[in-house]
């Protein structure tokens, strides 16, 4: 594009500076064209980004809002505490099924009291208005507050996913007519309850704090366990990959002799950076689970696999950062009698810090979004239990954010698509924060020389 065309005959040079000669015009036109290509390229990239973000946000924003039905629930003492001594240990023998009956009755009473009359409304329409998860919610609440048995308490009950979807625009009267899980009458009832203020849609903290839920109750599913699993893995990566990576690169860059061995190591580190991530998953499965015998689905294994995956990224960027420190600084330090180690740790490393931090955070962000290797080490499992606090919790089963997204997109209920997009938003927020931190640290540590 920037070739200089050789013409056989030299063109006469125009004498006036005020008029452009043909050659100048041509060069200017080339430059203008090139700038235009650049603008078009950026335009395409920006458009792709905007389309991606709008589609995710429009799909996923619903996950952050949730409809609840606020009704008085009469906690029948005979059903919930047959022995009558309010001992949570004995009350825990009462199954969720009994709580479901209590709730059904409460919903029926509430609907009857509200005086809403809808033609063709069946009793199953009424009782299915609330989530299947609601009885478990109520049971947990009662076991935590046994003294409330026998009283009537106001309780916020999760609404069925279809009804919830109706308020978010995912379900319509037409689709409900074809749907075995809901009916237009049920939606009309929900509308009427909403008008009376008993059914409210508000911000859904439970999406952030709840664990995953089963296929029938998307309204209860949350990313709590996935966030904790991802956080634990990031901890493992941070504590393993950063020291190992930085130490390895300092040794290779500053101390290692230049010979065939170090050349080979160098080439192989670059090769490792290009290995597909699923290969690291197979390695993790073979080495950490089958050979070492670490538990499946555990953040420690995920963290170790991601450490292996992140190491080359960290090593390559750290070496580049070390290389970019001007040699005059090393000379200066050696010249006043600093040892090699002192010159590196007092002068070279502080100057390389912004580059090292940026590389590390980019490596961590990459690890945070990695899915494939985690599928192979069992982190795709359905985990309802929160892992314990670290360090023991690292050995407990957990999920991870990207795997949770993958998991939810596999499920049948369209409500899970909304949840998956919501989880993507959470993941993107985390990545955004990490990149922001990288920029901040870069600014903070940057020094001129």
């Amino acid at each position, binding site marked *: 594009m920037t070739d200089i065309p050789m013409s056989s005959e030299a063109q006469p040079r125009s004498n006036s500076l005020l008029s452009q000669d043909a050659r100048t015009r041509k060069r200017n036109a080339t430059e203008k064209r090139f700038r235009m290509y650049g603008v078009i390229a950026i335009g395409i990239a920006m458009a792709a980004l905007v389309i991606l973000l709008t589609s995710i946000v429009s799909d996923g924003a619903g996950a952050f809002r949730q409809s609840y039905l606020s009704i008085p629930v009469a906690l029948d003492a005979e059903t919930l505490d047959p022995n009558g001594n309010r001992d949570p240990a004995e009350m825990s023998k009462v199954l969720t099924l009994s709580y479901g009956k209590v709730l059904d009755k409460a919903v029926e009473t509430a609907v009857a009291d509200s005086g809403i009359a809808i033609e063709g409304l069946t009793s199953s329409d009424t009782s299915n208005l609330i989530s299947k998860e609601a009885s478990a919610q109520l049971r947990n609440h009662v076991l935590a507050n046994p003294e409330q048995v026998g009283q009537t308490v106001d309780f916020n009950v999760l609404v069925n996913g279809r009804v919830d979807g109706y308020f978010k625009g995912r379900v319509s009267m037409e689709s409900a007519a074809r749907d075995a899980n809901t009916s237009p009458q049920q939606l009309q009832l929900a509308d009427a309850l909403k008008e009376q203020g008993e059914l409210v849609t508000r911000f859904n903290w439970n999406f952030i704090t709840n664990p995953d839920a089963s296929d029938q109750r998307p309204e209860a599913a949350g990313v709590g366990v996935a966030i904790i699993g991802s956080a634990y893995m990031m901890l493992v990566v941070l504590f393993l990959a950063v020291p190992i990576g930085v130490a390895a690169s300092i040794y290779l860059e500053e101390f290692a002799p230049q010979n065939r061995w170090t050349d080979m190591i160098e080439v192989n580190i670059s090769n490792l950076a290009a290995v597909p991530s699923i290969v690291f998953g197979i390695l993790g499965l073979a080495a950490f689970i089958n050979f070492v015998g670490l538990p499946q689905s555990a953040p420690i294994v995920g963290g170790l696999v991601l450490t292996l995956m992140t190491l080359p990224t960290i090593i390559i960027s750290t070496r580049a950062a070390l290389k970019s420190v001007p040699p005059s600084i090393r000379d200066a330090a*050696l010249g006043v009698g600093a040892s090699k180690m002192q010159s590196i740790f007092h002068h070279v490393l502080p100057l390389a810090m912004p580059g090292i931090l940026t590389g590390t955070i980019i490596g961590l962000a990459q690890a945070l979004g990695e899915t494939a290797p985690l599928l192979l080490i069992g982190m795709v499992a359905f985990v309802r239990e929160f892992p314990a606090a670290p360090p023991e919790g690292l050995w407990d089963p957990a999920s991870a954010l990207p795997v949770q997204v993958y998991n939810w997109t596999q499920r049948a209920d369209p409500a899970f698509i909304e949840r998956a997009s919501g989880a993507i938003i959470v993941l993107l927020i985390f990545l955004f924060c990490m990149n922001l931190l990288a920029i901040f640290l870069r600014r903070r540590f940057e020094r001129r020389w």
Partner: protein
Amino acid sequence: MYDINRAERAVTQQDIKISASKVQVYYGDKHAIKDVDVEILDKTVTAFIGPSGCGKSTFLRCINRMNDTIPIARIEGRILLDGEDVYDRRVDPVQLRAKVGMVFQKPNPFPKSIYDNVAYGPRIHGLSRNKAELDEIVEKSLRGAALWNEVKDRLHEPGTGLSGGQQQRLCIARAVATAPEVLLMDEPCSALDPIATSQVEELIDQLRENFSVVIVTHSMQQAARVSQKTAFFHLGNLVEYGSTDDIFTNPQDSRTESYISGRIG
């Protein structure tokens, strides 16, 4: 301000500080220094002159073993500092460099404060017992480098914020602060303007009272102005070594004569 007569002042002391014999340096297959024998006197400014690539900087860097950092460099022969071979297996180059300070071609202050730049050497060598002593060393070194009056009010500002000449004097102060016995200067004025150059040259003349100074320079005028002894290098050979006065007025070798009269270089 400085003319050639300056060099005629008597060399006050004649103790031999550095004695090199049969020094050979190879960079891989390239024979960079061939059979150099030279005796550098204490409390004297010795100038190394010669055309680019003649090995004068290489030889300078042999004296404090800075060439150790270049993996392909190989050195043969002996360089004695006060009678001790600096290439003896028992010599720790770090200890040697504390004794033989170095100032580089391009001013290279650490990206730290002026104070920390000067205090770095004394700190790592444990030359001071407390803050007061360190302050004293810093002040003395900065005074020694004729920089104190310019920076005494902004000791905690970054050293990289100084002008080029000030930065180079800061580097000299940094080298002086570790109390070396020999000061090696590798073209210390090549990045400086004439005013800064004359300041540094004046400083070099003062430093002669306490150190043996070896300076590599491209400028023959500078060699004539600041040095008492001059060595002329050509293609890795030490062609001629003698008092600056003799080299410039009565060169023995035809190559020296051609160089100083500007015919080769």
